[in-house]
């Protein structure tokens, strides 16, 4: 248990009487880049919502940074350093890019620190700096995803979870975001990327998990798992 930044132990999760995620155990070390892939409906988003605290596990425990957070409200997990970019990005659509980023840093009370982080994310995503006054919802999907990543980085998180990083985005945009994530990871942030696209972490991620019908079905070194013909044939489908 020691040394794991995120430690899911036999987690079951779902909504009311409906159980979506069964017996999932995932351990992520500080500094790792881990991907979780699975087809639509595999339970990935439900698992992410459980980690973020938007729903509580029906069984099992979620530990973060050595502490049991299974029943901790979402906003307190954020303050503990666990940032999540939800599926569909969920920007504050009617607000400007700048306001979205400022809100991302809401939990940080030190103004100078907020300004430093703002400068950092603008450096990471120069496209956003040029659009800081633009209403977030009027940007393209790719720019919105950049804005969502930048907003989460305003928290200066220990762990950044991205649900459906590439969904609906042009490959060139995904590449640009991945470039930024490489820098983010170099700065010491642990990455947990969830996607339907199995190519998302090839050559970059350390380890991969595969989910199907609410259960983990494969795990191991990323390049080996993500290139495994079994994965493509059995779990993701053509």
């Amino acid at each position, binding site marked *: 248990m020691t040394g794991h930044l995120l430690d899911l132990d036999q987690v079951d999760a779902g909504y009311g009487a409906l159980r979506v995620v069964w017996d999932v155990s995932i351990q992520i070390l500080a500094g790792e880049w881990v991907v979780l892939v699975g087809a639509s409906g595999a339970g990935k988003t439900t698992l992410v919502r459980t980690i*973020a605290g*938007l729903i509580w596990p029906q069984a099992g425990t979620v530990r973060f940074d050595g502490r049991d957070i299974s029943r901790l*409200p*979402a*906003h*307190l997990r*954020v*303050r503990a350093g666990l*940032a*999540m*970019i*939800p599926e569909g990005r*969920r*920007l*504050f*659509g*009617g*607000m400007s890019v700048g*306001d979205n980023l*400022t*809100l*991302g840093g*809401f*939990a940080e009370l030190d103004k100078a620190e907020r300004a430093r982080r703002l400068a950092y994310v603008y450096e990471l995503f120069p496209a956003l700096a040029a659009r800081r*006054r*633009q*209403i*977030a*919802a*009027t*940007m*393209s*999907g790719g720019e*919105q995803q950049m804005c969502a990543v930048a*907003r*989460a980085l*305003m*928290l200066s998180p220990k762990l950044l979870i991205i649900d459906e990083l590439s969904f*609906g985005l*042009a490959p060139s945009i995904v590449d640009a975001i991945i470039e930024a994530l490489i820098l983010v990871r170099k700065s010491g942030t642990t990455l947990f990327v969830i996607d339907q696209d199995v190519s998302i972490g090839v050559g970059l991620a350390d380890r991969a998990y595969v989910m199907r019908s609410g259960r983990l079905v494969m795990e191991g070194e990323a390049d080996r798992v993500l290139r495994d013909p079994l994965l493509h044939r059995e779990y993701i489908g053509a």
Partner: protein
Amino acid sequence: MPKSRLEGGAALRRAVVVALFLATIAGGIVLDNYWLRSLTEVFLIAAIAQSINIIAGFTGYAAFGQVVFFGLGNYATAIAMTRLDMPFIAGALLGSVVCAGFALVCGWPLFRLKGHYFAIATLGLNGAVQAIVSNWASLTQGGAGISLPLPPGNVLGNARLFYAAFLALMWASVVVVWLLNRTRFGFACRAIRADEEAASAAGINPLLYKTSAWMVSAVLAGWVGSVYAYWQSYIEPSVAFDMDIAVRGFVILLLGGPGSVFGPVIAAFVFQLTSIVVWSYLLTFHLGLMGLLIMAAVLFLPEQSGWTNIRAALAARASAALPAFARR
């Protein structure tokens, strides 16, 4: 909103606000009893609209039963002045405590509800409190109502006194909303209105900010109720908890723009003065005509007011959909 578009409008708006401020003060000196009373009602409903603005406009929770705090302010003040022989100010402060406490206690369960469910629940809250006040005769004298001590002074003097009191409340409500618009607290409220889940993903505690916003708006509505009780010197449950006050407050908020700082005040003037004019010339049909005006306003006016946020979002959705569509 892009800044360049704002700058011309901001100067004009500042001029309108200053002119309105001076005119309302001058009005208290030169106007006759009838117009003093008419404008006092404008200030009252403007302050109510601002109270609703804090919880519905900024935070996104449509508290339809907001009049419950107006009623609690009425009764707390009346009971304090008649049973406890307290001066008016002490009664109004007691009203603030009651309203803030009630919002705190009710906020915890009610803010688990969203959208229409929350709105209906606040409606039920008002009905429940009205029923309690009507039946707890040993404390509230039930349907017989409570007569308050008359304020000292002659008729015109009192008309000016309450004109000034409601004027002060209206401007106080503007200041509260103006502060809300500029502070961290208001920023959190607007984030909750925009997307509560995303707000908590940014480290904002939604329940804390929603409840605090409701307490502030409750105290504001409570003060309006306190002054109203002293002004009328007689209150009864059906008047203190009259849903018509909440409905008018909401209509004015919609006209003025939810989330806007001065819009509701200007809308209160337009709405109430139109109502007076229509009422004095069309005695038999004024309700029908006011209804038509409200519908027309809701249909055609939103474009100029605080709805710009929503419009921008809708326009954005249309344009954001384009590249995705083009790729397929």
